């Protein structure tokens, strides 16, 4: 199956409706679209903003490799990943992932796989800007994320 792949690394906000619509059209045999949006959180008011640094030369290539891997695992008609960089306020969308397939199980699995792999493989780093005015720490990677990504290596 030929998958229509969209990978974009951008500073600008993304439009959820446009990105979701793009996953469906023009294929009349898309039965299922699964999307995920990751947002900047205030962490209970502790943070004013997050700054996302990325590796410009590598981020797009690495995400494309992850999407290609998803396409070998599930029959997808479309797969999109849009990842932003720069300063994000709480409530701002950071990442959009969407998958389209004939049936829902494949769309869900591929979407979750993409998120798990992005978390551990895409060269992005988050720095905290605290509500008290100080620049805080770099967000630490979570072992949960490694575990989530590792789930997929024992499957399929």
């Amino acid at each position, binding site marked *: 199956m030929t998958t229509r792949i969209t990978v974009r690394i951008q500073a600008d906000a993304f439009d959820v409706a446009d990105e979701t619509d793009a996953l469906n059209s023009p294929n009349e045999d898309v039965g299922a679209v699964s999307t995920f949006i*990751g947002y900047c959180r205030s962490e209970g008011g502790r943070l004013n903003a997050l700054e*996302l*640094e*990325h*590796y410009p*030369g*590598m981020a797009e*290539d*690495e995400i494309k490799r992850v999407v290609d891997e998803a396409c070998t695992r599930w029959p997808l008609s479309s797969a999109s990943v849009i*990842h932003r960089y720069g300063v994000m306020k709480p409530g701002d969308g*950071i*990442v959009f992932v969407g998958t389209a397939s004939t049936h829902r199980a494949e769309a869900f699995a591929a979407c979750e796989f993409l*998120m798990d792999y*992005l*978390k*551990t*493989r*895409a*060269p*992005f*780093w*988050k*720095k905290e800007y605290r509500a008290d005015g100080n620049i805080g720490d*770099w*967000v*630490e*990677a979570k072992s949960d*994320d490694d575990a989530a990504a590792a789930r997929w290596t024992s499957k399929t």
Partner: protein
Amino acid sequence: MTEIKIVYFAWVRERVGVAEEIIDVPQNDLTVEALAELLSQRDEGYALAFENPKLVRAAIDRVHAKPSDMIAGAREIAFFPPMTGG
């Protein structure tokens, strides 16, 4: 001696004090690990950046690399913390 471009990100960049640099390495058959060890001897900032090798990841020509991978022929080596995107 061989010239190689090194790029740094996030707190590795902040500790090293530069975003990128071109350095001479004594030979071309170094591993990623050996290059990190060489760099860590440059000054206190580098030493701090590489003090816990488990927390520093690397890429060779924009592809994730293991500590034991050879840098032979590479044009760009990157060092950065575990990723926190998504």
